[in-house]
């Protein structure tokens, strides 16, 4: 037998040995508007990165969005179980025999490295953007081949929730240390359903099914996340059958797309709430700031009909939240709780009369095009305020660092609600002593003494009842002060090939494992 025929026989035998399903699996192309320049799941924390991460990596703990779109239930993933050894110490027990893409078996050392001070929370860590999830970490230690302990400086009853965030992704220590931080971000490796084969941050990510994936066979043969900046081009590619999934359908095009043959459009509310903060401070740039007066702030909030604006812009796709009352918080969510300052033009006039405001111009800094539909809503609002005598002017800025330059009266932002399984993140992390609202150069408020006191009670409460009451008290104080106004729950939209059975849940994260992608009819 010649070498050539030997090769042919070998190849044929290999092909015959392949499972039938593997041959049927589709090659999926996801047309995205952008990709984050690094695929390190912490350095690359972003919507554009997150669309890829979970296909390459696994987290220790996962949220079940394939059955419940809001994912309020935690699911053991790379960690099989966890327990609180003492108020400040949690132990995670890992799944056995989970391979990384190079065949190396994951163990406690990889997890301890992924969560280490060196990588996430020490001085000058390798991935500094993880610090917001590692608050209070004092020790991460592999205590056995498959057990890891995490100790915090304060008791955290919700620590396992942190392991669903980007810090919960497990990285292979041997590979990371071999190639270094930057190179890892360009060619990452994890235990996830797909193995990355190529990455060019301004073109595409390519990945192939990892058939040794521990959790089940990946449903696609290959995944390609391709940058197609222009929406019309993404749409054309979908209609022509070139792309299977298209992200970021502009809100005003959803109706038009729904009528297109072969295309399914999905709108999903996600855990992010666009808003603005009132600048309540008197600074050098703004010596006589009328917004130091709570009556004016309340007049502004009471003077705008957010429900009508949100409905006009978004239709049924979203809602206006009562502050910090978000459906993703399970037991903390109360659909009947109402806002302290609802829309009420008469009440707004009374607040306004009680204030010293004399019609001076209030400047609203908005980052151009960052939050979908934000500018349109802002224009509606400015008109509604003008009707009751409040004079607001929008200033569009090209990026956040320009938006942060004073003077401004309103500052656009959004607050993510994810992270802790209860309203800790949006309420205390985003407004408390460690928040940029309070501490950054573009800070907008000074916390009241009551807010600090109630926040500490909330933070330290261990039992649900105590924590829930502390949460309500803290929200009441926030609403009393009114340091900002939430606009709506953010919406992401997808257009997909109608033959694809895939639903991401209420999330901007696109996962193509067997739980989220259940079929593709050719």
């Amino acid at each position, binding site marked *: 037998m010649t070498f050539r025929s030997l090769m042919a026989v070998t190849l044929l035998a290999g092909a015959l040995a392949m499972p039938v399903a593997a041959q049927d699996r589709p090659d999926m192309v996801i047309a995205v508007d952008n990709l984050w*320049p690094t695929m390190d799941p912490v350095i690359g924390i*972003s919507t554009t990165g997150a669309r890829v991460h979970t296909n390459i990596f696994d987290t220790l703990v996962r949220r079940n969005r394939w059955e419940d779109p809001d994912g309020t239930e935690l699911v053991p993933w790379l960690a099989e179980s966890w327990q609180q050894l003492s108020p400040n110490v949690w132990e995670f027990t890992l799944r056995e025999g989970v391979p990384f893409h190079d065949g190396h078996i994951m163990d406690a050392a990889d997890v301890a490295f992924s969560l280490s001070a060196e990588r996430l929370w020490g001085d000058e860590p390798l991935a500094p*953007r993880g610090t917001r999830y590692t608050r209070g970490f004092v020790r991460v230690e592999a205590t056995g081949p498959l057990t890891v302990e995490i100790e915090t400086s304060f008791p955290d009853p919700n620590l396992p929730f942190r392991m669903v965030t980007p810090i919960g992704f497990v990285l292979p220590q041997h590979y990371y240390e071999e190639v270094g931080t930057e190179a890892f*971000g*360009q060619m990452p490796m994890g235990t996830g359903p797909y193995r990355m084969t190529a990455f060019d*941050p301004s*073109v595409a990510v390519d990945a192939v099914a990892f058939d040794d994936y521990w959790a089940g066979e990946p449903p696609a043969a290959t995944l390609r996340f*391709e940058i197609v900046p222009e929406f019309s081009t993404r749409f054309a590619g979908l209609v022509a059958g*070139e792309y299977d999934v298209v992200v970021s359908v502009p809100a005003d095009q959803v109706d038009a797309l729904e009528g297109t043959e072969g295309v399914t459009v999905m709108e999903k509310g996600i855990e992010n709430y666009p808003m603005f903060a009132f600048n309540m401070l008197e600074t050098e740039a703004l010596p006589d700031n009328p917004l130091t007066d709570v009556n004016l702030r309340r007049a502004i909030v009471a003077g705008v009909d957010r429900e009508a604006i949100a409905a006009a812009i978004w239709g049924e796709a979203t809602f206006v939240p009562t502050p910090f009352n978000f459906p993703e918080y399970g037991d903390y969510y109360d659909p009947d709780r109402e806002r302290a300052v609802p829309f009420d033009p008469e009440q707004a006039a009374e607040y306004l009369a009680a204030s010293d405001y004399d019609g001076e111009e209030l400047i609203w800094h908005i980052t151009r095009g960052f939050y979908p539909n934000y500018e349109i809503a802002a224009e509606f609002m400015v008109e509604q305020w003008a009707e009751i005598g409040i004079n607001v002017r929008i200033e569009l800025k090209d990026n956040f660092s320009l938006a942060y330059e004073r003077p401004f009266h309103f500052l656009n932002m959004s607050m993510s609600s994810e992270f802790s399984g209860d309203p800790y993140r949006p309420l205390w992390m985003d407004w408390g002593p460690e928040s940029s609202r309070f501490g950054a150069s573009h800070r907008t408020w000074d916390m009241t003494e009551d807010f600090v006191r109630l926040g500490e009670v909330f933070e330290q409460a261990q039992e649900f009842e105590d924590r829930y009451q502390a949460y309500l008290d803290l929200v009441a104080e926030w609403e009393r002060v009114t340091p900002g106004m939430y606009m709506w729950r953010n919406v992401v939209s997808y257009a997909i090939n109608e033959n694809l059975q895939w639903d991401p849940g209420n999330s901007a994260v696109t996962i193509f494992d067997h739980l989220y992608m259940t079929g593709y009819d050719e």
Partner: protein
Amino acid sequence: MTGYILSRVLRAALTMLVTVTLVFLFIRLSGDPAAALVPPDAPQEVIDQYARAMGLDQPLWQQYLGYVGGLLQGNFGFSIHTGIAVEETFLGRLPFTLHLGITALALAIFIGIPIGALAAIRRGTALDRFVMGFSVFAFAMPNFLFGLVMILVAALAFSAFLGGENANVIWPALTLGLAAMGSFARFTRSSVLETINAPYMRAAEARGVPFGMRLLRHAAPNAAIPLVTLIGLSLGALVAGSVVTEQVFAWPGVGQLLVRSVATRDLAQVQFLVLVVAFTMVMANLIVDMLYLVIDPRIRAK
């Protein structure tokens, strides 16, 4: 003549220096590059750590000297995101953009100039009016709109996709070259009209030189002078247009890289790309200046 060449080269060098300085300053004035690496609500310490890593905590003049010093040694810097040398990333994309740009220029020249000349020769006929109508359309049509219409019509009517890196280059090239095609046609027409009515053409006709020969040997060289200028200038429009066209067609060239790099404030990458574009423009102008020497004996004589 040496003076002419020297002054043009000196002008080119000066333009490059001014470009380097402006690019350096503008990128730093248009927002904090370190802040672009983190989400809007990131704590200041994180932004500061990135700023230190990027050398942005040093005084501006020190950063500038370091940058220019690096350039002179051929060290263009590394992408802050990928850690890859900026010229390496650029060279990876260059073939796409060259392919697109050269095809677009070729389409513009080989369609624009012949139809312009034809319109001049058949002046006042329906053909002339058609060519002029087309050239106005081609010049006025914004290329992003033309590209989008083409992509959408192809997808909705023919289920064909004209975008992406596997698409045929002819579609983005047609989009990119359309405006240049229109202006080449118009200029060729007026330039040829001017020369075919010139006294030396009548003299040639009187000497019995055949029509084709008169056109090629006498009219063409004279009509070529404004066209060479125009082609040189349109290189700039092609480079600028490629940014838009590549975005619309998802064509993975230098234009897309530039847009991405600006959006992510990838300082070294943006600086390098703008320098390359500036260098291309400066060289194109220099070559045009030198070509005058070849085709116009009057400049040679000066």
